[in-house]
């Protein structure tokens, strides 16, 4: 009777405090890890697995104490009752969470750097797209004149001012 009341209270406390432990898809996570950070990912995974194993090895509630047996055996008059009362009133303080705030701060920073990286990445893609467009809209080589070639690829233009005599480029570049 008194056991159930005590444990009822304790389980209600636990339900209120339980921080959500999300199920993590390690396979999907592993896919997204770039190859140069794989070692860090592996160490994180092993640590997470060991922590999870430790958690799983502990039962959620400790075995209840058989008060009636002790009450029948222990001769001292109020002792068992006193223990039982104190035990029922006892609340174990929950461990204080100091790290989640830091992790959230890290996440915010990571979000910011990720946004900056995404911007840079999009700029790169725009550049590549522009160059690709230029290549796609080029006339085929066998319909080009030398003028067209010089316009499309400025590096092929012969500098007639710097090298006035044929072949208009240093002999070593032929």
């Amino acid at each position, binding site marked *: 009777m008194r056991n159930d009341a005590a444990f009822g209270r304790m389980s209600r406390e636990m339900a209120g405090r339980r921080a959500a432990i999300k199920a993590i898809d390690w396979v999907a996570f592993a896919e997204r890890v770039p190859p140069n950070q794989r070692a860090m990912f592996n160490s994180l995974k092993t640590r997470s697995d060991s922590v999870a194993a430790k958690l799983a090895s502990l039962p959620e509630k400790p075995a209840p104490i058989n008060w009636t047996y002790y009450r029948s055996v222990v001769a001292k008059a109020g002792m068992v009752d006193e223990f039982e009362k104190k035990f029922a009133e006892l609340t174990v303080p929950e461990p204080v969470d100091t790290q989640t705030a830091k992790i959230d701060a890290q996440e915010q920073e990571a979000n910011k750097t990720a946004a900056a990286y*995404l911007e840079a990445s999009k700029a790169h893609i725009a550049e590549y797209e522009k160059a690709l467009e230029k290549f796609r809209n080029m006339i085929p080589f066998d319909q080009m004149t030398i003028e067209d070639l010089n316009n499309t690829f400025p590096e092929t233009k012969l500098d007639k001012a710097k090298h006035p005599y044929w072949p208009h480029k240093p002999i070593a570049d032929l």
Partner: protein
Amino acid sequence: MLSRLVLTSNPVLLLLLSLVQASRSFHQSSQSLAPVPPLPEKGGKVRHGIFPEELFTLLYPKTGVTGPYMLGTGLLLYMLSKEIYVINHETFAAASIGAVVIYGIKKFGPSVAAFADKLNEDKVAKAQEVKDQAMASLAQGIEDEKKEQWRVEGRHMLFDAKRNNVAMLLETNYRERLHMVTNEVKKRLDYQVQLQNLHRRMEQEHLVNWVEQSVIKSITPQQEKESIAKCIADLKVLAKNTQARATV
């Protein structure tokens, strides 16, 4: 004089003309169109190496197939008979050179043209390869950037994993504390029980010992002698009985 230069068939000019016939870049219009239409593959058709086909098609409606040939023969005979063209030593020189040149061109013309074409095609192929490689690398670059963006999207998983670890550690700690409390209380109660058992056992043993001692002490020497005498008397009676039984 200029006509003589042309008629004595400058070999370089003939070479150029035949090369032109074999290759394909021969602008036919002087208009500037943008974009430039592709150039024709072959030059204008010619008959007998020099005379353009347009002359024949021009004369065909009026004079039929033999028209231009009659024209040519007539012109030639006119020039010879009127001595507009004088036959001299150079005529034979021109004829011999012409024969050799025409033989050379007919024999080696196609291969030289093919060689020149190949040079050009190699240049174009190299440029095309460069262009293809550039396009492929750009496309690959775009793919890689997109992949990196996808990777970045998964960054929340790392923080979820970290928070999970923290939560699990806290939970483990809490459970350990619960277990510790229960175990300690149990230990205390068990200690009391064991203590009681110990007391009880010690009391029992002590009592038993004490009773033994007191019994042994209470056996006075007087009683001892009396019990020994009684035992002897009993033994005598028993002996008599057995003797009696034995004889009987």
